[in-house]
């Protein structure tokens, strides 16, 4: 239990997926202009990442390893994730439109979110057990959400500031992300 907690903490803070591992940066910059969007995206990532983590772990443990075709990991994972996301999107749209309105519209963004694919690959590489996979997927997603929401908050403020023209928008966003990443570096001593 304690180990799982340490794992969770390290996934959220020390190895923060956005700021330390550099995964999922396109939506990080794309959806952080508004707090509202950032929150929606964060929730959607938590949802999909946990599901994708579980399914890819199963595919890996029982199919890839079983058939001794580990080199097909990339192809099969991405196909499974893409199909899963598309399926969830269709399902939510039809069955739970309220949830779809909140989260669903962000789902397509997740197909090509390397955070999802990246975490699934990390789970396998680190040879996590099933339980650890669930925890790490969830924790990485929470870390993603945390960084995204923090960043969105800062960006909303920045939009008020007078920024030199060439530095505006993405440029200042990246510099800001750098400073946030700097603060996250201080978590390294935690474990």
């Amino acid at each position: 239990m304690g180990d799982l907690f340490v794992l969770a903490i390290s996934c959220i803070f020390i190895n923060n997926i956005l700021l330390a591992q550099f995964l999922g940066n396109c939506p990080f910059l794309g959806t952080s202009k508004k707090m509202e969007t950032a929150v929606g995206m964060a929730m959607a990532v938590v949802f999909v990442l946990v599901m994708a983590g579980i399914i890819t772990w199963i595919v890996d443990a029982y199919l890839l390893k079983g058939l001794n075709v580990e080199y097909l990991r990339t192809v099969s994972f991405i196909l499974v994730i893409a199909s899963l996301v598309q399926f969830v999107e269709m399902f939510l749209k039809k069955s739970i439109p309220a949830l779809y309105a909140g989260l669903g519209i962000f789902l397509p963004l997740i197909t090509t979110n390397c955070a999802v694919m990246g975490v699934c690959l990390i789970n396998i590489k680190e040879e996590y057990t099933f339980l650890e996979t669930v925890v790490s997927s969830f924790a990485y997603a929470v870390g993603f959400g945390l960084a995204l929401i923090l960043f969105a908050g800062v960006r909303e403020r920045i939009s008020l500031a007078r920024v030199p023209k060439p530095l505006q928008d993405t440029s200042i966003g990246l510099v800001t992300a750098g400073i946030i990443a700097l603060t996250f570096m201080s978590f390294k001593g935690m474990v």
Partner: protein
Amino acid sequence: MAQSLAKEFTKGLWAEIPPFRLVLGLCPVLAVTKSVENGIGMGVATTFVLVFSNLLISLLRNVIPSKVRIACFIVIIATFVTIVELVMQAYTYELFLKLGIFIPLIVVNCIVLGRAEAFASKNSPVLSVADGLGIGIGFTLSLAALGAVRELLGNGTITIWGGTPVFEMGANFLPFQFMIEAPGAFVGLGLMLCLMNLIGKK
């Protein structure tokens, strides 16, 4: 024909050079540009995938049903990514280790899928290859440039290939460790983007 071929090729080198003009595919840009060598390696791998997936998707563009379009494109791209992964593992193992997880993640690089959808699925194979090559080389150049800046400031060297630096700052140079770390990647890219905006404004 030759003209449009040249046009499709050159646009990736300046007018639409990723990730500066097209702010996409940031993850590898940020993660692997600790040195010029890494940057070039990643760029070449991406270019390979871009060119071949563009070619294949362009050839198959009329066969693939639109509803499973994304799934099909992804499979094609992932296949080439895996080939790159295996080949790199076999012949440039050190680089493979350095680029690590970002090789398989070329699959989800928005640039690759973006070009597949935006260009290859609508254009002839020849043009698609030109487009892929142009964008890929542009991407490689960007990665190398960012890698050079970060390596120079963070390590005091510039290493193009094989471990021996082609350029070294004097002994008095105190490496700016920050640039090699994660925050340096963000800040470096942000400032380079700013520079591009300045130049582009003319």
